[in-house]
């Protein structure tokens, strides 16, 4: 206790995307792990979707990790988007005025439908 109890985030593959599933509280203690996973996928030239369905809380450090992913994806010529965004996460993205910046997909089954 008091130690960093490392969270484990799952990565799955779907229709050519690497899907990074974040969960629980994405905050200053856990966002570095999320950031690392996202950036590693993009550095390997994978298009990335971040699944936020199980995110109960995300703070500015978590949002910053998403912004970094978005920017590195542009640089590397791959796609970056969000999928299954929980209400908690959406509210924070709206506060950050980022809900209109990131491509947000309703579900993995319907990636064509980008929510705006």
């Amino acid at each position, binding site marked *: 206790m*008091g*130690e*960093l*109890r490392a969270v484990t985030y799952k990565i799955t593959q779907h229709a050519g995307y690497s899907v990074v599933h974040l969960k629980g*509280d994405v*905050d*200053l*203690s856990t966002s570095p792990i999320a950031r690392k996973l996202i950036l590693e996928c993009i550095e390997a030239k994978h298009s990335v979707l971040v699944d936020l369905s199980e995110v109960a*809380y995300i*703070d*500015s*450090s978590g*949002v*910053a*990790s998403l*912004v*970094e992913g*978005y*920017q590195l994806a542009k640089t590397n010529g791959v796609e970056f988007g969000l999928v299954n965004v929980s209400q*908690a996460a959406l*509210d*924070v993205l709206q*506060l*950050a*005025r980022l809900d209109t*910046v990131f491509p947000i997909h309703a579900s993995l089954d319907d990636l064509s439908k980008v929510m705006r």
Partner: protein
Amino acid sequence: MGKKSKVIETRIQAKPEQLKLLRGVVRDAVHMSGCSDKTVERVVLAVNEAGMNIIQHAYKNNPEGEIILEIIDNDTELLFRVTDFAEPVDINNIKPRPLDKLRPGGLGTHFINEIMDEVVYSIPKCGVGNQVVMKKTIKSD
């Protein structure tokens, strides 16, 4: 009532893992004030960001520091006083980035300003440490 009363005071070490405990205290206290869940979560976010900024910018990630959160019930508003014991910081540097510039950082102070009704940074009289008082008007929504 119409009088001030301290609801709770909480002291944590300036470590990222401890912010979750701070959030729990804020969540419970604001929830008890009768705010909507959305308001509760926003206030939790704002106080978290204040704590995070202290860890990163005031204590520069030195985990030895301590953070005190006091929640004061002022009847129609809640006050959140967050105190640290770091070297006094330059208050003029505490400001959000322009939101039209897409950068990873600079969101925390934006969240705080957006969510709280009043935010005042100060340096305590004793000349050590920093304090921010954030005011949130309470509508039982």
